[in-house]
């Protein structure tokens, strides 16, 4: 199945799997561009406060909605704030929250999914019914209920996103596990008398990990979508914190006269999401996984 990877293994001294994967991904144009975009965004998110030209909340009544010029490379918004600064800092909240929530979601969803796929039985039946019922509700309703109850702080958003977005991962991990469990080498391990935990660790993990890695990339993409949509609607980050969703919402009213306050965050957000997807695509090809099976939302 993973023809991209295994046929590379011809020499006796084998480099680690991670190094091989990264090399495969970078060898494709989609992977190269994607990874570049993602890393660029992450670096910006981490280090932008150190080289941003202006203070993101500094308002300037004399330069409202001014077009790009020598001082303000991308112009100013309706409160006179520098758009360049706010744009390069606009991803910080979103990336911070989602970059923490994604591994959490994949971890808990993956573990539970593997366990259910292995155990089966009544627990599996019941939990999958609950999962189905849960997925019947639109994501935004679920998010909003949480926010309205507990507020919009990071301490709420990270666990909420991790909790809700881990649920589709359960499905994926369970399906992948069920596929593998039916295979003889798992039966052989069971027949030898290995414990369930040991089987999970030795036989399943590695094989399910590939699917989870690709799914993880997609989860990150969906979470960013959720986070920025919430900000756009006014339920996420609160001003004056710069955030792309919020910036796009603000700029809508003035688009006719000043389009650039909308352009900058649109391009920034789009490029990050495109980057993640290109990377996920290249990763899936390198690992030999069919992406159409990946879960949605």
């Amino acid at each position, binding site marked *: 199945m993973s023809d991209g990877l295994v046929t590379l*293994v011809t020499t006796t001294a*084998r480099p680690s799997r991670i190094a091989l994967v990264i090399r495969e991904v970078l060898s494709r144009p989609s992977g190269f561009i994607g990874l570049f975009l993602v890393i660029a965004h992450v670096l910006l998110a981490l280090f932008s406060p150190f080289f941003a030209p202006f203070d993101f909340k500094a308002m300037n009544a004399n330069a409202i909605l001014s077009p790009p010029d020598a001082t303000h490379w991308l112009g100013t918004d309706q409160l006179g704030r520098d758009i360049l600064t706010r744009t390069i800092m606009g991803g910080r909240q979103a990336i911070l929250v989602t970059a923490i929530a994604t591994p959490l979601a994949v971890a808990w969803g993956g573990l539970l999914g593997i366990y259910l796929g292995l155990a089966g039985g009544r627990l599996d039946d019941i939990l999958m019914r609950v999962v189905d019922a849960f997925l019947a509700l639109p994501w935004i309703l679920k998010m909003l209920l949480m926010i309205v109850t507990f507020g919009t702080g990071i301490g709420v958003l990270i666990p909420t996103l991790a909790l809700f977005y881990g649920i589709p991962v359960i499905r994926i991990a369970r399906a992948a596990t069920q596929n593998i469990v039916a295979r*003889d*080498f798992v039966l052989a391990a069971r*027949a030898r008398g290995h414990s369930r935990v040991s089987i999970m660790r030795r036989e399943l993990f590695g094989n399910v990990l590939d699917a989870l890695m690709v799914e993880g990339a997609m989860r990150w993409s969906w979470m960013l979508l959720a986070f920025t949509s919430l900000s756009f609607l006014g339920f996420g980050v609160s001003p004056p914190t710069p955030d792309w969703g919020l910036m796009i919402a603000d700029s809508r009213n003035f688009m006719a006269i000043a389009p650039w306050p909308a352009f900058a965050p649109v391009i920034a957000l789009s490029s990050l999401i495109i980057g993640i997807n290109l990377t996920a695509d290249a990763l899936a090809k390198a690992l030999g996984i069919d992406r159409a099976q990946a879960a949605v939302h």
Partner: protein
Amino acid sequence: MTGDVLIDVQNLSIGFTGRSGKLLPVLRNIDLGVQRGETVGIVGESGSGKSTLALAMMGYLKHGLRVISGQSVFDGRDLLTMPSRELQRIRGGKIALIPQNSGQSLSPNLRVGAQLTEALALHGKLTLSAFPARVIQLLQQVRLPDPEVIASRYPHELSGGQQQRVAIAMALAGEPEALLLDEPTTGLDVTTQAHILELLSDIAVRLDKAMIYVSHDLGAIARVCSRVVVMYAGEIVLDGDATTVLTNPGHPYARGLLASIPRLGNPSLPMALEGRPPPPGDAGPGCSFVDRCAIAEAPCRSERPGLHPLLTGGRVRCRLPERAESIPTKRDGRPASAGGSFGEPLVRLSNLAISYARQSLVDQLLGRKPQGVPTVDRVDIEIRQGEVIGLVGESGSGKSTILKAVAGLVGPANGEIAYDKSGALPATVEQRRPEQLREIQLIFQNPDESLNPRHTIEQILAQPLQLYFGLSGDALRERSIAILERVRLGAHYLDRLPSQLSGGEKQRVAIARAFAAKPKLVLCDEVTSALDVSVQSAVLDLLDQLRRDSGTTYIFVSHDLAVVRALSDRVAVLYQGRLCEVGPAAAVYSRPCHPYTEALLGAVLEPDPGARPVLMAEDIMELSPPAKGCPFQRRCHRKVGSICESTTPPQRDAGAGHVIHCHIPIGELTSAQTVSALGNVVRPHVQ
């Protein structure tokens, strides 16, 4: 003579571009001519290129393959360069394919009748209104009962044998001049196979079509073909009439191949043909068989032999065909069984019943037990220490299920499995004690599946060593190497992944993994069935050697009667999950024997051109075992009467531990089988 040539493959070489960019050949310089009305068998193992050649005869190349040189000429025109519109007319119309797995090759969304009609519409010369009648006629021609019903069914509603017959009918619909058969009976039960082959040879004779029969099974080819071509590593190495090739072939590979096939009549282990064919592109400048050849000389390595005509007719690709005669084609002497005494009973299956019926949600809620007939029932077998007992049967016989129950992967619904001195074995693995887990080891059929593709061989072997003996570090490594050497692999295999090993090597690793635990009982589930014929014998040899060295007991499951005979001391024959007979191997394979055993033995295809299988059992698909009476009641050719349906057959003692479950008394059975058509195949048992 040349005017009669229908298919003419001329110097054809086909290959694909490997990862490194090199062109790797799958077929090399094939020259093959087939005349009208001729039946040719193309024999080869995996990697021989036989399927590629067969498809090339229809002008078809699988994705990724391309022509390096040569032509595939049909009726005077090269198919490989023909425009697709004309190809469409020829495929199905002049030359038709009967595929390997008809279940997968028939479109699932169209009814059988519709698919046959499509073939008629494309190639037949009839008018539209005549189609329905012709469809029925075709189905009758392939001996399907109730053709109208079959025509209205979907492919998945038919049994394997029925699907294959439909595929044959579909191929005949276009009234082609040539039929191409790509392993058409692989995957079918022994008895079904025999029926299909009989049909095919009948068609070959009556309809006077050219037939190209591609298979790895020499027995099937012996049944149908008058001429045999042997392929190895993408080349034709031998071409001649069936009798010569199958009894006294002129090429070392063919001789080695014949010697490695287990025979019913010869109870010894076949001679192993060690090594494996070179992968595409790896063959050196000389003969491709040189590494495995018993008579190879230095020049064989440097010059590639051409295909020379033989005095006796036919062609051979060998520098020393006269010397080839010295290679034996069968092994005499050394039977596998240790003979004589064995130890205490190790395993006793008493009234064992296993059921796969699943509980529906409603049943679970109501606490009801699943209804229905058990998959396995009333099985009583005693296995003594150090012996090899073979479990033989076709699909649905329950033999694998019994093995899984002994292994603890499925719990019995009734009865018990007693082990050693500790009494009844706990039903599932989770409940068993560590020594029991260690002492009972299971080896699976398909080595591609039973080894984790992400683990190195070292990691695979480490698992039992760590689990059962707590070994680690140097001690672990030393023991791993020791075990690898026992299965005739070396320390350099430790770092490899399963995908880098051949099928035979992988199976040896699986065997090594089982023996690493120092087991008392090894359960072999069709361990040779997924391997090439020449590799099978090496594995059997290995298993026999290991048994001698360590006194391990085997329960050896297989559908291949000859393989079981070669290795086993005692044999149990199963049908639909019930026991038909148990006894010493020699006794079971001769008369008297159970009617089902008789049918099985009659259906076995030996690679002997003179042999004709005897068809006894009806070719019916069994959906589930009968609720009462003898399991074989629906198909038995010696059915007594209604007693077979109502009463469980009694256990009749034929002497020396041979027990037959049949309503017919032993004496009657013996005399009836003596005069039957079975004659030579089922010899009288001499005690």
